[in-house]
């Protein structure tokens, strides 16, 4: 029998409160009428109105969304190929260094990844800007996609693929008609993860960016360093609302698509 003890309940409640209360406070204060972030001056949406006038911020947001979309798309393709290589293609020379290169970026401190990529771009004389940030984000996030897709591939019953091939289905068609539908939710989850990681990154983007390519986090970061501002609360609230909606939708969709396969 599963029953939560009092200790379990308290840990869960405290844990979730710890995770959510700070975010909740941030959202509440974005509707604060007072310029002082800590004094409540009544409900107001003036900070949201102020955002409509802030053109550099909007431009930075568009730059970020563009980079996130392109790099997440590239990372999804490369990461899925990497996952297939690790789980389906058996042994080949150089498999071990390949696995090492896929897992290392997941834990590598961002300052090292950022610095090394920048030095590469300088060494080959590549002009820094939107393209270099996109390449950097693709490299980092493809590894996250690979891990998500690979765990789905590892738990997937291979006899289905083998049955198709035994019946004379060519490998590419087997992949498209048998494997792909099963791993599609993992690929979608990988894309979303890559997208949000790219949208979130400050350190690697700061190293690899150039003039004219300010991303949203770099912009917010330079404002936040100078102190707390109500406009930033408003930006953050919009950001939180969008990600919450996307993640909840994505998890609903993946539950719906996974259920028939599991049942």
């Amino acid at each position, binding site marked *: 029998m599963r*029953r*939560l003890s009092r*200790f*379990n309940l308290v*840990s*869960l409640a405290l*844990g979730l409160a*710890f*995770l959510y209360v*700070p*975010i909740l*406070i*941030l959202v509440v204060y974005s509707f604060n009428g007072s310029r002082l*972030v*800590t004094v409540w001056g009544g409900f107001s949406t003036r900070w949201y109105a102020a955002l409509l006038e802030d053109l550099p911020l909007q431009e930075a947001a568009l730059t970020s969304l563009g980079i996130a979309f392109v790099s997440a798309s590239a990372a999804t393709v490369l990461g899925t*190929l*990497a996952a297939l*290589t*690790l*789980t389906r*293609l*058996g*042994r*080949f*020379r*150089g498999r071990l260094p*390949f*696995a090492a*290169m*896929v*897992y*290392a970026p*997941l*834990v*590598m*401190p961002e*300052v*090292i990844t950022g*610095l*090394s*990529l920048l*030095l590469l771009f300088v060494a080959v004389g590549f002009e820094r800007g939107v393209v270099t940030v996109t390449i950097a984000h*693709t*490299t980092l996030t*493809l590894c996250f996609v690979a891990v998500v897709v*690979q*765990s789905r591939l*590892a738990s997937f019953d291979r006899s289905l693929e083998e049955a198709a091939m035994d019946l004379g289905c060519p490998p590419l068609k087997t992949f498209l008609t048998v494997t792909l539908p099963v791993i599609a939710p993992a690929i979608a989850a990988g894309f979303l993860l890559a997208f949000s990681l790219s*949208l979130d990154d400050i350190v690697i983007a*700061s*190293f690899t960016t150039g003039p004219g390519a300010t991303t949203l986090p770099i912009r917010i970061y330079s404002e936040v*360093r100078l102190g*707390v501002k109500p406009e930033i*609360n408003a930006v*953050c609230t919009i*950001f*939180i609302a969008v*990600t*919450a909606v996307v*993640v909840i939708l994505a998890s609903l969709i993946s539950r719906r698509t996974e259920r028939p396969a599991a049942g």
Partner: protein
Amino acid sequence: MTNDTAPQKSVGERLIIALPYLWLVAFFLVPFVIVGKISLSQTVIAQPPYTPVLDLSAGLGGLIDFFGALSADTYATLAGDDLYLFSYLKSLQVAGLSTAILLAIGLPIAHAMARAPARLQPFLVVAVMLPFWTSFLIRIYAWMTILQRDGLLNQVLQGLGLVDEPASWLSTDTAVLIGIVYSYLPFMVLPLYASLHKLDESLLEAAADLGCPRWKAFWLVTVPLIAPGIGAGCLLCLIPIIGEFVIPDLLGGSDTMMIGQTLWTEFFANKDWPVASAIAVVLLMLLVVPIAAWEALQSRQIREGR
């Protein structure tokens, strides 16, 4: 195994391997070699700000000049100034302490999640993941609002009469620890939950039937079985925290810097690319052992998953 273990692969299979392989070699491996090379260069005021610059057009003579001009001066600089040593030690201390706190907080949460009704568990996983999906910068900013001198924490503490005058929380090590624990908690809870979830509960029932107290059964049965999850959670937190930049920069004080901040300052403020590279090389050396352990755990997981 029935899969193709023969060395000969079709063109399609080779292409599948080659694309991500070449990408990672070009944008992950080669950059490290360049960092190593520049850490052996001298700082100059030029563009790029280091010498020697490899000039391939000069042919073999250029190559010999190039290697002749490399030096270990930057490493002597690192060894000669306490600033760098303190920075490394500070990072290790903060990372070790925060990982220990994360494990202590994460284990009860993951345990409760794994024991919750099966129907509820997917929602709890999403609930723990959700803050991770919202921007990391936003979460640190949220704590800046709470911890600043006239912030919410001081208002609450004063309201309760616990302190007479507002304490400064921001720009302290405590603030850095809070920020790190808050940001990395999902990375600790999810691997722990994954291994607790797979745990066979009849083992614990057997221990209870034989008269083993609950805490002792947890220590003797559960902990050894979830050791890979504990290892994964700790490494997933420890390694990136050592090189953390944004959290100590926004929440910490200016007296002692973590190594990620020192690297950042050398690079962006002092424009000393060779020293920044040397810091990265030494940091990487420190991380070789934990990263190798991480790699071993990950490869084991794939093999078990098959």
